[in-house]
């Protein structure tokens, strides 16, 4: 990914509160080829106004225990600068996960990078279509990629999010299990409140285009090989007056294993 950016003439920098030593070890381990800036004590993070003061509060909502490592955390995100150093894009997102990597954040939010060939599917009747793609067509051991899913709803159509009215099916993404693949929790944009005609109830719904990201971490030992990620997106589409039956769409996304920079993939010594 860094090479692709370099070829496009884009400089890449990452910044965290890690010490120089921690960053040096990380660089050696993963063959990082761009500057990792050490903001020990999070002084620059604070100075720029990016200090997340609500980490403990946010994490409590998700049942994550408070942790001294959470002090000084920034909001994770990316700035895109033009040739003059002016901010032309800024992508930050709510993140309650403790292991979002820099690469995942970049890949998730930028159009500069080529994503892998995606896959798409359309509901019968065309009320909903779904497109899925991975941050990258390749992975290395211990890498976190995102499965990006875009749900496009026809005008006047919405789908439910949690909490869902009784008897209805909320939007969800399922990934067929693969040995060594750790599947995280999807993050969708905030749903909006919707009131059904004639009913005195409100529900959380998505409309228009909703793009979600599901983190996938490849934890199996190196040499695990290429995979096909099989995804099912389930939902129930409704208009203001009528609901269609619950539906799902399936996508298949291939991903190939690459060796870490400077290393070879292990060769299998036996068939298992």
């Amino acid at each position, binding site marked *: 990914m860094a090479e692709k950016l370099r070829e496009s*003439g884009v400089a890449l*920098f990452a910044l965290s509160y890690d010490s120089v030593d921690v960053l040096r070890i990380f*660089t050696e381990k993963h063959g990082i080829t761009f500057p990792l800036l050490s903001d020990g004590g999070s002084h620059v993070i604070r100075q720029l106004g990016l200090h997340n003061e609500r980490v403990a509060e946010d994490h409590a909502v998700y049942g994550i225990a408070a942790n001294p490592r959470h002090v000084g*955390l920034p*909001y994770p995100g990316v700035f895109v600068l033009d040739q003059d150093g002016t901010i032309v894009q800024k992508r930050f997102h709510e993140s309650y996960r403790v292991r*979002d990597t820099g690469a995942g954040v970049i890949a998730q939010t930028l159009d500069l990078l080529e994503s892998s060939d995606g896959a798409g599917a359309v509901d019968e009747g065309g009320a909903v279509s779904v497109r899925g793609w991975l941050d990258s067509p390749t992975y290395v051991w211990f890498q976190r990629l995102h499965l990006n899913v875009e749900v496009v709803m026809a005008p006047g159509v919405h789908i439910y999010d949690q909490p869902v009215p009784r008897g209805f099916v909320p939007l969800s993404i399922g990934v067929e299990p693969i040995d060594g693949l750790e599947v995280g929790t999807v993050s969708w944009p905030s749903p909006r409140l919707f009131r059904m005609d004639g009913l005195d109830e409100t529900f959380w719904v998505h409309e228009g285009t909703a793009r979600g990201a599901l983190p996938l971490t490849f934890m199996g030992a190196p040499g695990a090989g290429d995979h096909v990620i099989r995804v099912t997106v389930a939902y129930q589409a409704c208009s203001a007056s009528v609901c269609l039956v619950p539906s799902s769409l399936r996508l298949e996304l291939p991903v190939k294993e690459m060796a870490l920079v400077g290393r070879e993939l292990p060769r299998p010594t036996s068939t298992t």
Partner: protein
Amino acid sequence: MPLPPRDFTTIGPKLGERFPDVRLPDQTGQVVDLHAARGRQRALVVFHRSAEW
């Protein structure tokens, strides 16, 4: 129910502004001046949580 989302248009440096000057050591211990290192290239500046986790 999730917490109300924050408005990132108001948090941190804003669209259209010049990115602030940042001078920090990199993984080799060498101090890097971000704009100087960038030169006339476009750049991505990624803020992330710990590399250690």
